[in-house]
């Protein structure tokens, strides 16, 4: 596609529920990143994929968060037992190789009530 696509654009869920956020990177980009941006702050790194494998998941806050990229293209960020503190904008980015610049999608705004 022309740019990084993220769905849904907005997600409202109840505390304790499970959510999946989807990212479709720019075609041909091998590197894919997930970031989380809370209100008034810069994006914080969550996980980085090179191809199908998670090369660095050191930013995932706890084991409720998990991400996959089974075919090296689309990625899904999964959050179990959501908490109100998970409310944020989840940004996905991709790059052609391991080097920047990263190209960001419009994000998914997650609200946990």
């Amino acid at each position, binding site marked *: 596609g022309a*740019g*990084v696509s993220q769905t849904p654009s907005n997600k409202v869920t109840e505390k304790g529920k499970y959510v999946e956020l989807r990212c479709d990177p720019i075609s041909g980009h091998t*590197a894919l*990143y997930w*970031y989380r941006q809370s209100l*008034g*702050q*810069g*994006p*914080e*790194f969550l996980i*980085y994929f090179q191809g199908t494998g998670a*090369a*660095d998941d*050191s*930013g995932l806050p706890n084991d409720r968060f998990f991400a996959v990229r089974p075919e090296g293209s689309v990625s899904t960020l999964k959050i179990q037992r959501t908490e109100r503190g998970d409310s944020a904008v989840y*940004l996905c980015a991709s790059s052609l190789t*391991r*080097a*920047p*610049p*990263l*190209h*960001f*999608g*419009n*994000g998914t705004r997650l609200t946990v009530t």
Partner: protein
Amino acid sequence: EDKVVQSPLSLVVHEGDTVTLNCSYEVTNFRSLLWYKQEKKAPTFLFMLTSSGIEKKSGRLSSILDKKELFSILNITATQTGDSAIYLCAVDGDNAGNMLTFGGGTRLMVKP
């Protein structure tokens, strides 16, 4: 741990003014520094800087890096209301994930 600090946190100017946004950093094995503009949604790439003292310019925007003093500035001349956004600075250090470490951003509002 890599660290990026941006100042000011927010700024209000009038159209036609010139603004300077600041970014200081601490990073292990610096590779590059990037500036992004974030309006309502996706951060959009502005500049990537790797060498000290070489100005990057795009229209009314310019940026320069000082690797000795560990900072960068982003200048915007003759500001327009369309420049209103959050400006994010990020550094790429020598980390296994090749991820960017972002500052908290500067929120710029340009009034007519």
